[in-house]
């Protein structure tokens, strides 16, 4: 590793979002804002906003608490040496996306400085600037120049890009007639041929199917082997450990820890598991139901009785629900409990309920712990949110918490063949046997 000039040098980088201006997007809003101000009311009441991204949620929270500003990144400093592959990890809203936005110059820092030595390319969003009416050929040029290539460079690499994308026959067809697979292949081919000295990759934002994401990661490995610098933002700890020599853990917009990937990942996982175990389910306000009893804790045990929040397909788990009977309630004799898993799109992909098997439970005053044993966990790789429910048959919802806890499914061998199924197509796994019908 060279110790000369770093490829990426970040010094005291901060990004602050001014609040109080949120929601005033029109002249009419502006007029109303001042009208409320003049009448001595708090205009913030009229301009509540629910954010969509993790950062926006934190922003909205900060605003509700009356803070005039919100620091998405605060005083972040680190260097990346040429040829180094560095992983950026952290929870949602830790500032990872903001860091990438600053590195790619999409927005400007509030203070601090970044020095980039070499050409930068990002695999944040492939196919940016694709126009459906234009042909594949025209879009290669369009996309390439948007990503910072010169026309001459694209001329030189054109054939390579086309053969990499495997769409030679359709290169003069408008891309609106492409299948989504072809579209992504072409887009990725362009990005893959940028030959940057510094490559920025955001796994979270990477679109496309599993095969494509694999291609992304593969490309990253290539780039790294050629001695270029890679900055990899990911939730996938296995990928980070495989690819990155060093990792940086961001939390609350600050560097929590930097160092050898193994150490950082271990610390990070340890802490996030601890956090997930408590799950602060007790403090959740966003519940539905009659409230005669409440779910106050949820955790998962593996066969050896160790707590887990990263599950493996095909293993056996015991899901534990801790319920607390409401004050003034005597005994609830026949309560059914349910656990559902939601995918990233918010759709239920897996559901268990004691009602199905008539295994109703009795909740005594105080705390009762319910256990649901799931042999042969048949959910494919991915990140899910568990929804937890207590009810009486189908007639009463006692307590329901959506998105109670995040559950990651990683690895495992459900089929006993090493196959992971097709997680992008179907989130559940089913074993079946095959033969030629006689």
């Amino acid at each position, binding site marked *: 590793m060279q110790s000369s000039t770093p490829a990426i040098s970040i010094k005291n980088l901060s990004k602050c979002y001014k609040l109080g201006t949120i929601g005033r*997007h029109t002249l009419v809003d*502006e007029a109303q804002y001042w009208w409320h101000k003049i009448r001595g009311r708090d205009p913030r009441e009229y301009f509540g906003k629910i954010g969509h991204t993790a950062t926006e949620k934190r922003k909205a929270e900060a605003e509700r608490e009356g803070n005039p500003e919100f620091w998405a990144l605060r005083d972040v400093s680190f260097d990346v040496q040429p040829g180094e592959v560095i992983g950026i990890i952290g929870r949602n809203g830790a500032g990872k996306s903001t860091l990438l936005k600053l*590195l*790619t110059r999409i927005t400007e820092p509030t203070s601090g400085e*970044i020095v980039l030595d070499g050409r930068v390319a990002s695999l*944040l*969003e492939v196919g940016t600037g694709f126009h459906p*009416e234009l042909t594949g050929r025209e879009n290669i040029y369009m996309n390439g120049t*948007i990503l910072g290539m010169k*026309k001459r460079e694209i001329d030189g690499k054109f054939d390579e890009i086309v053969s990499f994308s495997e769409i030679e026959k359709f290169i003069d067809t408008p891309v609106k007639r492409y299948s989504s697979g072809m579209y992504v292949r072409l887009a990725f081919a362009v990005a893959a041929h940028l030959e940057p000295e510094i490559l920025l990759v955001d796994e979270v934002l990477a679109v496309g199917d599993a095969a494509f994401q694999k291609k992304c990661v593969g490309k990253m490995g290539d780039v790294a082997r050629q001695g270029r610098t890679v900055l990899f933002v990911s939730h996938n700890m296995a990928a980070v450990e495989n690819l990155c020599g060093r990792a940086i853990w961001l939390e609350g917009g600050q560097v929590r820890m930097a160092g050898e990937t193994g150490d950082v990942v271990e610390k990070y996982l340890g802490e996030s598991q601890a956090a997930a175990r408590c799950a602060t389910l007790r403090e959740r306000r966003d519940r539905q139901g009659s409230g005669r009893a409440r779910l106050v804790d949820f955790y998962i045990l593996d066969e050896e009785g160790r707590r887990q929040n990263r599950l493996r397909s095909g293993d056996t788990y015991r899901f534990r629900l801790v319920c607390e009977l409401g004050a003034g309630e005597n005994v609830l004799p026949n309560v059914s409990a349910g656990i559902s898993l939601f995918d990233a799109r918010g759709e239920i992909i897996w559901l268990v309920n004691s009602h199905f098997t008539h295994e109703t439970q009795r909740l005594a005053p105080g705390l009762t712990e319910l256990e649901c044993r799931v042999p042969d966990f048949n959910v494919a790789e991915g990140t899910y949110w568990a929804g937890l429910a207590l009810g009486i048959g189908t007639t009463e919802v006692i307590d329901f918490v959506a998105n109670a806890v995040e559950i990651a499914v990683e690895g495992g061998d459900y089929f006993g063949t090493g196959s992971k199924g097709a997680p992008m197509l179907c989130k559940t796994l089913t074993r079946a046997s095959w033969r030629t019908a006689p």
Partner: protein
Amino acid sequence: MRKTIIQSGSPWWRIDFREIWEYRDLLVLLVKRDLTAIYKQTVLGPLWFVIQPLVTTVVFTIIFGAVANIPTEGVPHFVFYMSGIVFWNYFQGVLNHGAGALAANTNVLSKVYFPRLIIPLSGVLIQFAHLALNFILFLGFYGWFFFRGSEMSPNAWLFLLPALILQCGLMGLGFGLWVSALTIQYRDLRFALPFLIQLWMYATPIVYPASLVVRPSLKLLLWSNPMTAVVEFSRYGFTGQGTADLSGLGLSWAVTLVVLLSGLFLFNKVQKTFVDTI
């Protein structure tokens, strides 16, 4: 190796023209993309850009010429209106393109960086292609009326034409940059814009000659509209009729440059962080 320094607080007046030059291939491709996309997806293709000014001219000829009988200083109605419309279309085309530069491209601009000025600049060139088409149409009608013996005397002011076209483009760019920057804060400006442009057209001597306005206060107002000089001078060059008022042209250029420069600076300031506010 290329070194990029990203830091806050680079002053609002520092516009990186060298970077824009480095991205010139993108500019060219954006122009090509928009032109091919427009011409590919509509059935009438480029014909649309001929039909629009043609129909507008016919409507103006009927309403303002035949019905309202507004004088056109002896110039055939058709030529009189069309000369104004061709320039006005260029101006408002560039303005509209520039106005949407940031808001209409957020999906791209929030994912990749390139000098954002490229987008409004591409508008100047794209609209120039439409202008060329409209201009050929205009020359056709102009020639036809001319050889049929209409009273029109083209003169040396015609040499000013390239400067007028340039001015028209820069003016549209300047106002477009202003609107673009303001729409980031005030979205509803987008809805007000077509209406404002419509009003502005009637404040420009397109359906009436500038000589018709005689009250000094109104006259000053009319000539402080930078489009007035462009329309009047081009019309004068072609027909020998109208008001070729050099002080008016000077004022118009002054307004154009002030709007353009302030627009550039404002846009440059807003574009740095506009992604944060959308």
